[in-house]
């Protein structure tokens, strides 16, 4: 019990000095008065009433265009990144696409079987980046 009170007192002192904790809003007012030389907007933005800053990302993924090997692509590639990683690409040869898939497997450990890799390369060649993917870029 005594320990809890001590912790509580400590937290209050901490809050008053740091702006973090239960008395955060009071600390905001104090700092605003002391920090008159700082731009108000800066003080206010850096001392929000909630210590949590968060965003929620929009879901805006490109549709993986139809083509041979689409299933392998959607299963193995889209788990880590958006289909837009291919629909925004220029036209590349089979050799280049093969190299890219190999890099995903070797450097990043993509869960791609040898059979799937073949399928995925076929898909990438068939959809050909932005050109036959109905891509919106360029």
């Amino acid at each position: 019990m005594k320990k809890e009170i001590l912790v509580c007192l400590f937290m209050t002192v901490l809050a008053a000095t740091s702006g973090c904790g239960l008395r955060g809003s009071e600390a905001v007012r104090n700092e605003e008065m002391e920090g008159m030389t700082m731009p108000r907007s800066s003080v206010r933005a850096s001392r929000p009433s909630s210590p949590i800053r968060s965003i929620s990302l929009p879901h805006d993924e490109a549709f993986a265009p139809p083509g041979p090997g689409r299933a392998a692509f959607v299963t193995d590639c889209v788990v880590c990144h958006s289909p837009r990683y291919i629909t925004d690409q220029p036209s590349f040869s089979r050799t280049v696409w093969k190299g890219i898939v190999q890099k995903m497997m070797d450097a990043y450990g993509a869960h791609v079987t040898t059979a799937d890799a073949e399928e995925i390369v076929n898909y990438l060649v068939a959809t050909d980046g932005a050109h036959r993917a109905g891509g919106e870029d360029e």
Partner: protein
Amino acid sequence: MTPTANGQESTTNDSCVAAVTRRGILRVAAALAPGILLGQQNSSVLARRPADPRRMVRFPEKRELVLQTDRPPQLETPLHYFRQDLTPNDAFFVRWHLAGIPTQVDRCSFRLQIDGHVQRSLSLSLDDLRQRFPPASVIAIAQCSGNSRSLFKPRVAGAQWRHGAMGNARWTGVRLRDLLEAAGIRAGAVDVSFDGLDEPPLNSIPDLVKSLAVDHARSPDVLIAYEMNGEPLPMLNGFPLRLVVPGWYATYWVKALCHITVLDRAFDGYWMAKAYRIPNNAKGAEIPDHLATDTVPINRFTVRSIFVRPEPDEQLVIGRPYEIEGVAFDYGAGIHRVEVSLDNGLRWMDARLDPELGKYSFRRWRFRWSPPSRGQHQLLARATNNEGVGQPTQHWNRGGFMRTLIEDVQVNVV
């Protein structure tokens, strides 16, 4: 690089803040309401800035930006924002590598860890950084290694940026050197590595960790920024802390920085040893048929100069004076000269340079031109820095990195 403190100013240097801010306000006004400020011009002509056909998107805390990829987010700044000396935070480009990006930060429980080859490990809160270390500020360009990659010929894989994978901002925070001194670097330190809150979507994907040589880390130029243009950083630009390495590509500017490790050996993580490698020559150049075998980690900027206006395919009016405008920059030696050519590089004429805002900042240049004839015209611009480094007519590498080619813009005169 031989960094000095010259490019840095104290946060209380109000005259500089005011100068930039005033100019910035004028530029914003000019961008938003050209018809008001340039009333003598025909508004139908001003409306001819061609719309960017690429897909625009709004992400949290951001204006509409050009969508490169959505997961992880890669968003490009539209060209017209570079009419302002400082790029607005909500228009500043976004580039993450790994889908596990931080979407929530508790500014009270957040701690920056400093450990490794030091006398005492530190765990610092955001308030510790503000209260225990003197603030430092610098105006510096964050530029993606692959900025302008879509212009490489032959084309190369990667995000297909135009010129908007960069931005110029005033960064305020603490000097990395001060933190390292507080921790006490032990003898024999070699590299310092930097890790952020972002996480790979698979365990097999190497976490994004970058490193600097210990001497570079100890230079006064390198900051840990808690503010960008006087505000906390947007989440997508690395709230709450971002490493700022002026004159070096943004791959080193680790976002949501949370862990600094001093090493007594060379750092050999994937993102230094395998990725972001360039041919081992000053401009990072190679040719497609003979790829370089000797490569090094990408490092400082090349010399660049880009057109801000006119924009590609903009329509100008014959005989009507037009102020061509652009920005030039380099790795911190400073821009000495920018020249414009109207005849495909036969003759070059000096552009006027605006006052320098700092050696790591955009340097604005202007050139007044009255289009002499109707039809398509090609304009070229090239910069030379204070060390005599200029821009080449040929430049390519397989990564689409370190663009430094002389840029052109096509305009249509009616």
